């Protein structure tokens, strides 16, 4: 019995250590190293899980987005085939497969570039030419962005992220785009407001307030939920986007993939 108590003590002390560490939700050591936490505290303080079946909530939230009420004249839907560049963070794990379906259904070419653990600060860093390089190389006619999830809880968001968001939008230039906001799992410190302020009317889809079924990390929507998320964006687009494009709902069997039509690239966090 005594050695069972010892083992339990080891486990309990380790558990306590990680619990305390997760209270700080990551401790920065130096400029480039962060002691990642197990996220226990975040998991405990999270709102209760909801199911993905709440797609109606998704739609309601979308139509309530502040910019949805902005006054602008939405252009008619462009039905021509597009070259779409879809960039973002790990949220593209769930969104990208559904985007592939949409592109196959509607004959668009897709370049999806997923950069794990990335943020507006990384994509919009003055020292990073990744986005401008991608745009120069692929010459997209439409850009989808999903960034902000890794900056939901940082302080001084305007100072830290404002210039980076400006740089991203400058890189995109006059190319039509949609910025899909991060799927908050708790209230953010201002990243959604910042993006909504910086983007043009009819280009920001507010995801905050939607109900998602989450993976066990409590942050990422599950694949079916992410698919519903993208469906909501596409349903929102014709009436609310400044420059909507044809995005008919995918129907099985999907049209066959043409050579070079779909390109998925992934970059690891520290690359």
């Amino acid at each position, binding site marked *: 019995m005594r*050695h*069972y108590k010892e*083992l*339990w003590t080891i486990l309990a002390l380790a558990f306590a250590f990680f619990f305390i560490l997760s209270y700080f939700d990551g401790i920065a050591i130096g400029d480039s190293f962060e002691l990642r936490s*197990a996220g226990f505290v975040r998991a405990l303080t999270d709102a209760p899980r909801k199911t993905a079946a709440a797609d109606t909530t998704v739609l309601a939230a979308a139509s309530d987005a502040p910019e949805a009420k902005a006054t602008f004249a939405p252009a008619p839907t462009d039905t021509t085939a597009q070259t779409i560049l879809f960039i973002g963070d790990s949220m593209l794990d769930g969104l990208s497969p559904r985007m592939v379906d949409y592109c196959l259904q509607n004959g668009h070419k897709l370049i999806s570039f997923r950069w794990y653990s990335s943020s507006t600060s990384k994509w919009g860093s003055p020292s990073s030419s990744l986005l401008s390089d991608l745009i120069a190389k692929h010459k997209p006619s439409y850009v989808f962005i999903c960034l902000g999830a890794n900056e939901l809880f940082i302080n001084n968001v305007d100072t830290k992220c404002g210039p980076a968001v400006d740089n991203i939008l400058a890189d995109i230039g006059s190319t039509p785009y949609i910025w899909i906001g991060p799927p908050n799992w708790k209230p953010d410190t201002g990243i959604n407001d910042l993006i909504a302020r910086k983007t043009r009317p009819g280009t920001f889809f507010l995801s905050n307030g939607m109900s998602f079924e989450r993976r066990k990390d409590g942050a*990422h929507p599950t694949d079916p939920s992410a698919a519903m998320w993208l469906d909501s964006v596409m349903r929102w687009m014709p009436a609310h986007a400044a420059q909507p494009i044809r995005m008919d709902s995918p129907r099985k069997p999907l049209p066959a993939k043409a050579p070079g039509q779909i390109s998925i690239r992934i970059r690891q966090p520290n*690359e």
Partner: protein
Amino acid sequence: MFDLLFKFHPGEPMLFSSGTFWALFLLFLPAYAWVATRRSRTVMVLFVLIFSFFFYYKSSGAFVVLLAATSVIDWTLSKVIARSSSRAMRRGCVALSLTFSLGVLAYFKYANFFLMNLSAMVGSNFQPLELVLPVGISFYTFQSISYVIDVYKGTIQPTRRWIDYAFFLSFFPALVAGPIVRAKDFLHQIATHRPASRPDLYFGFWLVLLGIVKKAIIADYIAQYNDLIFGNPTGYNAFETLMGIIGYTMQIYCDFSGYSDMAIGLALIMGFRLNENFNFPYKSRNLTDFWRRWHISLSTWLRDYIYIPLGGNRKGTRRTYANNMATMLIGGLWHGAAWKFVFWGGMHGAGLAIHKASKPYLGPWSDTRAFRIFSWLITMTFVACLWVFFRADTWEASWLVIRQVFVGDWPGFAGVQAFASARMLWLIIMILIIIAHALPTGFWPAAGRLFVRAPLWAKLLIFILVVQTVLQLQGEDVAPFIYFQF
């Protein structure tokens, strides 16, 4: 909190490397220690049984009812088999049990595969059934089949009480991804159970830590690169693709043997010994040796319940090869309902036959160092190429990956340097795991004994270091155990 710990979340099976499992294990351990040391065996069996069923509910939801039903039906039939003196009755009960066990497995795992092939043959439109595969069904089905057959053969006596059989079938460390536990090795441990001794307990803890390192640090990290290659089979040059294939070869070993280590370690902490499931398989110099070292619990099961009943090697050379091939084809199909798995099994069957046939011609020079290196290289190339069919999403994608190695661009030295600089950590981990695998076989048990003797603070420090490394290296999403799908 309650929701996270106690409710079933579809698509989120309990992983031994997850925080949820360890939070639950923290509650389980003191209670288990108390019932195992202070109470009767029956109380211990009941307590673990309830926890195991709860564990399965957390992993597979309502399918826990199916697990319970399997245990009731097979236990009842095994009792009838043992009591009956009528050969027809005994055979009938075995047939009934096999029909139920294999019927359930076939329905959940192979119905869509069968219907898809049927539709292709008759040219109709295939609409897949919406079936969810119960987690670990292939493992516990094989356990229950071996139990009923062993009772029929008289190798073992059926358990007197249902709870003992249900305990064996649902024992949570081995429930969802093996090893496949055999009744003859396990049931007597219930009857004579003692709590783990101090060395066993800490050796079990060592195995769990080793499993976490293999699965959550090595396999999950190197998977991030391998996924890129297999996700875009023609998108990388030949060298990168080759690295992806070698990477997956190590990933599947670390993933599955890591899980087995955790399962064996957890069982040992509880005072139960499960048989070794992996014995440094990539040291094998031929396929026969490989299958003696890889997923030992499955290969011995296939040998005892398929190969030998088919006649084994007792009915001539041709029949031996045919039996071998049939066994490996079934083994392939066990891994997944797709032709690529059948092909994988068939190729291994062919490889085994070639090795058997060539053995008499190898002569004394087969013991030379050069030949040993050559045969190891051939074996590993064969094994690694076949893993591509395991990993790639489709049959076509498998060939694309292999083709890319031969027809893709080979970068020069600068390209290899660029790869090394971009994938430095991946490369370091790969080199370390290859070295760790190549160390003398006695090294790891010796390291385990050192760990057992280490002071408590050192064990705590090592545990914290291991878990923190997992956190530092983990991707945005935790990869499920590869073998969960089986």
